[in-house]
């Protein structure tokens, strides 16, 4: 187990190295010139060229890469080409929002969708199962932005219950913090809940059809014992995989929700950076996301040993 852990941690180094190279090269071969965007629409080509030189964007790509590597080796992610602020500070400002949004969405989704999926799988073919699957199909089909606007229309504009947009840190008060997150979390969670409920249902049905479950029934176990003692733990592996991958996706994929509810998260930072060709931010955010992905994958793999004793590393 420890040897496996060490191997996996060491494997992070080449993965991150490959990410650094690919991201650096890809964004520079993509069309777009930060200097032209920085200069503004009325600037002459001469003014744009001066900015390009001043920012070192006229240097050969390998020189720029060397400078970047040197910065990384010293623990620096660089400064934004546009605002001039340190990338680490920009990421730090946004990380709280995205982390809170992703965590609460995940928590809410798991608490709602896993029991729903279990119930649907257990009561397969009944009205409970059918209702749950209708919810899953509807939830999965609803575009996030459309649901977001619908929630704003109903709960903010018509009922005046919740704010339309923005984020409040917990230090600004518990209720403002919660109130600003209810709609975004629900809007983001619906699609994810649908996915999780379907996977949980399918897994539970699959497990309930296993030979060992039939054996348990033959030995006189009750429905409740079969479900909670024998079935659920074995059904957990695919569900945990989905939850883990879902967390990684939520971290980076909340951009639509962040835009609709004007939440200053990492998703919006990334999209703005791509549109503005802010190379240093794109590099920094991608590096951080890649690292988080690797760590989450490692944790998922390790969790398998808890749910399924047959898995050994």
């Amino acid at each position: 187990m420890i040897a496996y852990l060490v191997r996996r941690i060491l494997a992070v180094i080449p993965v991150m190295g490959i990410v650094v190279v690919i991201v650096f090269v890809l964004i520079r071969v993509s069309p777009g010139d930060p200097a032209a965007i920085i200069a503004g629409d009325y600037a002459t080509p001469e003014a744009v060229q001066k900015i390009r030189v001043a920012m070192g964007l006229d240097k050969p790509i390998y020189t720029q890469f060397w400078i970047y590597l040197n910065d990384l080796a010293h623990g620096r992610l660089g400064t934004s080409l546009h605002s001039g602020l340190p990338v680490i500070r920009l990421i730090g400002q946004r990380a709280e929002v995205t982390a809170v949004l992703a965590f609460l969405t995940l928590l809410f989704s798991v608490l709602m969708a896993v029991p729903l999926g279990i119930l649907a799988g257990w009561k397969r073919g009944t009205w409970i199962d059918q209702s749950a699957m209708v919810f899953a199909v509807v939830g999965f089909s609803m575009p996030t932005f459309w649901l977001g606007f619908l929630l704003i229309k109903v709960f903010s504009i018509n009922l005046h219950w919740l704010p339309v947009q923005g984020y409040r840190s917990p230090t600004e008060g518990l209720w403002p913090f919660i109130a600003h997150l209810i709609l975004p979390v629900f809007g983001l969670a619906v699609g994810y809940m649908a996915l999780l409920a379907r996977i949980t249902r399918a897994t539970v049905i699959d497990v309930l059809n296993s030979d060992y479950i039939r054996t348990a029934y033959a030995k006189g176990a009750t429905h409740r014992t079969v479900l909670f003692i024998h079935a659920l733990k074995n059904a957990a592996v695919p569900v945990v995989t989905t939850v883990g991958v879902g967390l990684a996706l939520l971290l980076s994929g909340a951009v639509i929700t962040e835009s609709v509810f004007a939440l200053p998260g990492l998703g919006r930072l990334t999209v703005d950076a791509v549109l503005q060709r802010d190379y240093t931010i794109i590099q920094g955010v991608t590096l951080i996301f890649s690292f988080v992905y690797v760590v989450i994958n490692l944790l998922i793999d390790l969790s398998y040993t808890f749910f399924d004793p047959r898995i050994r590393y």
Partner: protein
Amino acid sequence: MYRLRAKRFAMGLAVLTAAMGLLLSGTQSVAATFRAVPSADVKYLDPHFTTADITLTYSYLVYDTLFGLDAKGEPQPQMVDKYDVSPDRLTYTFTLRKGLQWHDGKPVTSKDVVASLKRWGSKDSAGQRLLARTVSLEAVNDATFRLKLKEPYGLVLRSLAKPYSYIPFILPERHATQSADKPFEGDPVGSGPYTFSKAEWVPGSKMIFHKFKDYVPRSEPASGTAGAKNVYVDQVEWVIIPDPATAAAALDRGEVDYLEVPFKDLLDQMRADPRMHVFPAARYYRTIHPNKLIPPFDNVKARQALAYLVSVPDILRAVAGDPKNWEACYKFLGCSGWLSDVDEIPGLRGQDYEKAAQLMREAGYKGEKVVLMGATEMQANYAISVTLASQIRKAGINVDFQTMDWGTLVSRRGIKEAPGPGNPGGWHIFTTGAGTTPAEDPWGYADIQTTCEKAWYGWSCSPKTTADLEQLGKDVGTPRFKESARRYHADLNEYLPYIPVGVYNAYRVYRKDVVSGIIENEYSLYWNIRKSK
């Protein structure tokens, strides 16, 4: 013992209730905070570094100018108290107002002014023209500076009042002596009506400006960028809301007070709401730019064909919908400004595909692909490009309409060579636009310059037009001006650096039930505003 426990319990409960109350209610916001949703997020805090409109708007809060342009378009003293022009119009002596000071408490001096004007003049076309005619620009004492010219120049005050592109904002000398090719180093310190704290700035989310309590406004009423800059709110908060529908909902709920770019589809709904005031603050010209270095548009006949094939009303309808939102205009430099008493562009009024096709043939066009670039996320730009592509096609031109994001377009438009297998980034046409103030000022408007290699994208090259523009600048304020303006326009109509396709209104909206005093200006100005609750 029991009583003591009960008392402790009651006290504990009271403290807990108070703490919960505080926790649940949150921190109270500042009473007089004016919240606005700006058109974009500020990226750069140096007004001489970029021409981005949002940096300009930011700079008007934090910095000040020597002159402002009033609502009638006339330059008026702002930081300047009085000025004197010698009889030969070669020497200008300016005296600064008393009480001007930087946000760090130090006084504004003429050394700051001289350094700022030199820095601005290194970037801005109007500044470059002014400095090219300058013999000397120097501080006489802390409050006085002097400008000596080689020859009389009618645009001195107008240049110093310039309200767009690079604006001659006055910076502290320590910032103004740094190169304008990079943002200055150090935290921004202005002398304008608001201070800006970099520490509170969350890029992409919010910017907070605090009232500068030591700012001394002028006594004249506010007008355009001139007059008194009175501040009646404690702070201005810019809230970045990327989605216009969310911004409209936030305005409806009172979470914000002002939208700089309201959602076009919701304008009628907002007009019908008695709490809202919708006003046309800005007018934007749209323009079609051909690459004049490569065939077919290196030939003026091909550019004339563009004028013949476009339908200005159709394009404006695509951009702004209802005709009450736009005005077809068939002249360079607009139809309502001080340079509008001139001839229309031949062929632009009235669409004629056959004539356009004939002109293209005369230009040597034989059906080669014509690359038109359009930016999908820029609503007006994309609407024009789509309409234009259809009109070009109907004139028998083989158009290759390429869509991309604005970041790609602004990088590709710098490519001079013709598109082809070895140069996939090349282009023939793109569309853009500008507000009325820049688009009606031929000395400052980059797009209209005809200075060949030094000209804006599309590289217009007409030495005669350039010379006549210089002459027009000299003739400002003289009896020769009108004739000079006609001559310059005749040059433009003959050369066709670009094709202007009219002007449309850009609206803004605010909550009139809580806010008053907003100056309805082309760029948002944040002084004079009162908030009632």
